[in-house]
């Protein structure tokens, strides 16, 4: 730093002085530190991709792409493949999305479209937040001791009378796709609801005015104007909710049955990539661990892709409304 050019300014101002060398140094150091931390996030993500990829390489070399398409996970024969898990992951998440997405968007409409007083809306918002706060294991525990016994009678009835229908073709003996998907739906509902509420809130007031000014009923305004306007935001909510469902582990590990099979039946046990990792890892020997690392990589790629798409849609939405407010 050059010598203070305002030394002669001292006449009336005996109090102010330029920052000391220490202050200038602190400024440079601190700004560098802050920059590094921001950069660190990028490094962290790259590191995660690198590490998991690295651990997966031995298994990738051994099993190649057959890993994605085979259906056996046999420790004794040392044959590992994850198609049933990929199927289970996608199927359970899709079912969860259908239910959780529907309810999530409905609640978002309920909260933002003037159905209830602000106080009551705050109560429901709290309920949704509490749903999000409950840990995954607790949902798992609840699923085992409350949900499964609850839906079993209904499932057995459906199986008895409609077993020709692929969705009901097996018996619900305990854990299975249905309870897992139901709990998963409950778990992603808050995510979908929160992002959808955000999407509805972004709609400029004048759009609402225009709709009601034409004499629409409340629901005509919602279905014909508000939903279409918020559609990209709601799409983002659904995609991101789907992404959460894909990565969910514990509740599924406890409820899905950990059975490596592919079935359309809602009542058959199944497995997901995440619960495979959770249940097999503790006891796994070195070869199995490598296969599990490959499975982890598959999960990483799928969730990364879905989340990036979801975020892209969300950012597009924000930009769309940026100028309109």
């Amino acid at each position: 730093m050059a010598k203070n050019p305002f030394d002669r300014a001292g006449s009336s101002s005996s109090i102010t002085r330029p920052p000391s060398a220490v202050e200038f140094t602190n400024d440079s150091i601190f700004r560098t530190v802050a920059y590094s931390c921001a950069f660190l996030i990028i490094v962290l993500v790259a590191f995660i991709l690198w590490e998991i990829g690295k651990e997966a390489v031995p298994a990738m070399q051994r099993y190649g792409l057959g890993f994605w398409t085979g259906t056996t996970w046999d420790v004794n024969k040392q044959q590992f493949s994850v198609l049933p898990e990929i199927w289970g992951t996608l199927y359970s998440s899709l079912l969860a999305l259908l239910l959780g997405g529907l309810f999530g968007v409905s609640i978002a409409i309920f909260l933002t479209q003037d159905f209830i007083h602000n106080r009551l809306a705050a109560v429901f918002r709290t309920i949704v937040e509490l749903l999000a706060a409950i840990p995954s294991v607790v949902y798992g525990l609840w699923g085992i001791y409350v949900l499964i016994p609850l839906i079993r009678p209904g499932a057995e009835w459906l199986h008895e009378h409609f077993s020709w229908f692929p969705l009901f073709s097996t018996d619900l003996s305990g854990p299975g796709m249905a309870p897992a998907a139901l709990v998963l739906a409950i778990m992603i509902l808050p995510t979908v609801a929160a992002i959808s509420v955000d999407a509805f809130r972004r709609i400029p007031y004048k759009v609402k005015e225009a709709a009601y000014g034409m004499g629409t009923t409340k629901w005509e305004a919602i279905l014909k104007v508000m939903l279409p306007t918020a559609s990209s935001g709601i799409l983002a909510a659904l995609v991101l909710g789907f992404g959460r469902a894909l990565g969910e582990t514990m509740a599924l590990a406890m409820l899905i049955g950990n059975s490596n099979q592919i079935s359309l039946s809602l009542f058959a046990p199944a497995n997901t990539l995440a619960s495979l990792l959770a249940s097999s890892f503790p006891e796994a020997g070195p070869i199995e661990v490598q296969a599990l690392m490959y499975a982890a990589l598959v999960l990483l790629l799928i969730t990364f892709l879905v989340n990036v798409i979801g975020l892209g849609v969300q950012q597009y939405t924000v930009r769309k409304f940026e100028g309109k407010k």
Partner: protein
Amino acid sequence: MNAAAEESVFVAEPFTPEGDVVIDCNVEQIYYGNFLAVRDSVVPIEKNKITGFIGPSGCGKSTVLRSLNRMNDLIDVFRFVGSVIYHGQDIYAKKVDPVVVRRYIGMVFQQPNPFSMSIYDNVAFGLRLNKYKGNMDERVERALQRAALWNEVKDKLKNSGLSLSGGQQQRLCIARAIATEPDVLLMDEPCSALDPIATRQVEELMLELKANYTVALVTHNMQQATRVADTTAFFSVDISRGGRTGYLVEMAPTKQVFEDPQQSLTKEYISGEFS
């Protein structure tokens, strides 16, 4: 460019103040990105006087004021061509750090902006920043007294600065700015967010500050300029070349600007024909 085109560019008559010039501001061009915001404005700020900048909206008076303490640097696309000489140094020289400049030249903004700390801490902020080792309580009291706020807050110095009314907050900001006895005080429409009574108090304050400080004031209120400014610089907007570029039209002692303006544009503005 041919001679005819050059002649059509108006540049104000240079103004030479009688006393010492504390800041000699010589704007050649001010750009925001590709937009030419201000051109050709030489505005000398005289010591222990109040220099008022008036003019219609968009004429660049705030931009020029904020250039005097390099506040515009906070805007990425800002570019200053020219010089601002303060104590023999051009503050826009490469070696000069704007942080140092702002220690010597204080600023009061349009919207009152006290920090979310106690009244005392707000006023003491500059003192602590500059590692003042003297009697802090005394300086704080003096600043608050000069800002005509002491009697109203002396019993509640620990209260948050944000708990005061708008007019009080602005006076707090003035106290904060003068606590460190800066050479020059820049005031950017300090009364525009205030009611008439608070405005009157701040105007009286400015007249008292003159004795110890030099003030440069931007105001959209002509009457305020007649009441407090010793010298007035009138800016206007040049739309002759397609854009809206501000420029200095006339600068003279206030009495002369309002009673005997030399430029027709000044005459029109004063008489309210455009604003």
